[in-house]
């Protein structure tokens, strides 16, 4: 066996000005330990093989890259969907949860802590823990538990304990805080499986590395299908793990435009949104410096989005850096437009998307609608009107959109909206 240290590359702690480790001193040794373990594990062929086999035989990778013909017609461009919605448990979250659970076992940690908003990361983590025989505690805001009852039941069936969080708005932000507090107390025997590319270093780099499989597959698949790279790569951004996992594979392809779609909620001007990259100042939330929604006193403000998975007032630090460097650009789509796109993709492709990637679909359709005004396909309820976007499309355009999850969890929410 080769000496792991010889091939180990250091992990990014900073992305430009962003990132860092703004946590209580008690956690610093645990972060050091995690960083060293990941640097070693990712250079270890045996670890890579074990993860690759699980991702293939258990989770269902590679996920397909699907040429969405009717969506392409609607958008006026050729659109490929990266089908993370077909992954086991229904979203890209499992890529990260499986990797971190394997890493935890390798580190000798028998207890897993996780947070969840909509429940997708909680279900993914509970699944990975069931598979590997690890104890699992998932922190979830009591308001989210009420809204996402089926996922709470799923986690219970998988053997996880769901711990309700009563602080603040009782949603994802408070669940992350409570998970970190648990880890401060129990880091000796517990690993915290953070679900997005946020948090103190090494999490943003660790989660990116584990989600990179999305982009690596998609890049090879589109080259095989089209013989060229896409013009635009589009993904939704809450914390930003599916987006960074997609973008990173295309970062060196200078001609590929990278577009992150945030949640504009009830509209940016309403203040009720989840678009820190579009609007937020530099700030510290949950251990890293990034774009954060806050008031002038530095108090973090509550986010709002119809999509629980985007309902978070911070963003991954690497996204903040990609924004500042100009390598990626970030746009935002309202609740109404995302729900309209959700319905439209159901009808166009027979795919029920999660509300999170429905934001990315909405932006894509917005650009198509704008370019093809008057000639675009007629939809049953004319819901293409007023969609966001603002990019002049051409029929030669080639887009790749990460469809990060499926929408079963969102049916009740969408149907309630009528």
């Amino acid at each position: 066996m080769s000496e792991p240290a010889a091939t180990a590359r250091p992990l990014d702690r900073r992305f430009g000005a962003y990132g860092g480790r703004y946590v209580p001193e008690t956690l610093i040794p645990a972060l050091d330990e995690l960083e060293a373990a990941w640097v070693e594990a990712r250079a270890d062929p045996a670890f890579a093989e074990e993860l690759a086999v699980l991702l293939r035989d258990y989770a269902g990778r590679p996920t397909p890259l699907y040429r969405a013909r009717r969506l392409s017609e609607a958008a006026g461009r050729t659109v490929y969907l990266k089908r993370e919605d077909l992954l086991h448990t229904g979203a890209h979250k499992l890529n990260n949860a499986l990797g971190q659970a394997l890493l935890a076992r390798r580190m000798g940690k028998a207890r897993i802590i996780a947070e969840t908003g909509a429940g997708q990361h909680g279900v993914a983590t509970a699944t990975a823990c069931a598979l590997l025989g690890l104890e699992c505690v998932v922190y979830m805001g009591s308001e989210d538990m009420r809204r996402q009852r089926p996922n709470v039941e799923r986690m219970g069936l998988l053997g996880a304990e769901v711990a309700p969080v009563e602080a603040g708005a009782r949603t994802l932000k408070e669940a992350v805080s409570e998970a970190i507090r648990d880890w401060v107390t129990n880091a000796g025997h517990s690993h915290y499986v953070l679900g997005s590319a946020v948090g103190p270093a090494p999490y943003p780099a660790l989660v990116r590395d584990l989600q990179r499989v999305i982009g690596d597959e998609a890049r090879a698949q589109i080259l095989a299908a089209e013989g060229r790279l896409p013009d635009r790569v589009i993904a939704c951004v809450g914390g930003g793990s599916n987006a960074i996992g997609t973008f990173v594979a295309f970062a060196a392809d200078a001609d590929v435009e990278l577009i992150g779609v945030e949640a504009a909620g009830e509209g940016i001007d309403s203040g009720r949104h989840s678009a820190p990259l579009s609007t937020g100042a530099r700030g510290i939330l949950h251990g890293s410096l990034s774009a954060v929604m806050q008031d002038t006193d530095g108090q973090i403000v509550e986010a709002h989005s119809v999509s629980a998975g985007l309902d978070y007032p911070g963003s991954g630090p690497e996204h903040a850096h990609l924004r500042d460097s100009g390598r990626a650009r970030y746009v935002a789509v309202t609740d109404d437009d995302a729900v309209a796109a959700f319905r439209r993709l159901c009808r166009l492709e027979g795919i029920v998307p999660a509300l999170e990637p429905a934001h990315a679909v909405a932006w894509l359709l917005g650009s198509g609608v704008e370019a093809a005004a008057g000639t675009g396909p007629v939809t049953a309820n004319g819901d293409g009107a007023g969609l966001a976007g603002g990019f002049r499309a051409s029929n030669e355009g080639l887009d790749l959109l990460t469809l990060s999850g499926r929408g079963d969890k969102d049916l009740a929410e969408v149907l309630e909206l009528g």
Partner: protein
Amino acid sequence: MADRIAAAFAGHGRRAALMPYLMGGFPDLATSHAVAEACADAGADLAELGVPFSDPLADGPTIHAAATEALAAGTTVDDVLGVCDSVAARLPVLLMVYANTVLAGGAEAFVGRAANAGAAGLIVPDLPHDEATELRAACDSRGLALVPLVAPTTAADRLAAIGQDARGFVYTVSLTGTTGERGELPPELSALVERVRAAAAPTPVAVGFGIATAEQARGVGEIADGVIVGSRVVRAAGDGGAEAVRELVGELGRALEP
């Protein structure tokens, strides 16, 4: 102003200096002013004044809830600096403030506001040593102490670096966890304090997190230079206002008599 911290640790005449923690704006702004005065009346040697933050990762349920309540009532950073300003002549005040509050308007600007309010120093529980260089320089230039925290998990080489850069005193976190009253303190605490003392000398070593009773305060006073009592004091402020805090701080002070 940082010199006042050294004087408070040198001249208390007890087993150890007594440092109660109060939350600015809790249970309401007027009462938190009165609580600060009560701490001074009852013989506290220093005071730690919490600036409420929306996402206090280092705090357990009592202080978290107090911060939430203070913010819900509209407490601003300026309000809390007002509490500092009104009591700072009577005893050295350390602001316990989270990193985002400090950095929101720029570190130098925050340090300037704290200095103008008479603060003796800052304690920033989510700004570990690696991230603290800029703020320490800003504090140094205005005569404020940036007090570092160390934990039971802090390794020897890190402890040495933190001890060398310490200003005012070293805040030793007694346990691996968040703030909050505990029935018992870890048996390894005395060894931890010795390790910190060796790394930080001649800077004083104070211990906080978990200390809730006079008996615990006396025990910590036998091994450390300072005793910090937080959640228990905040609970008293919530239950009985300034009078309850005056009584509690008096009792803790008597427990530290030689």
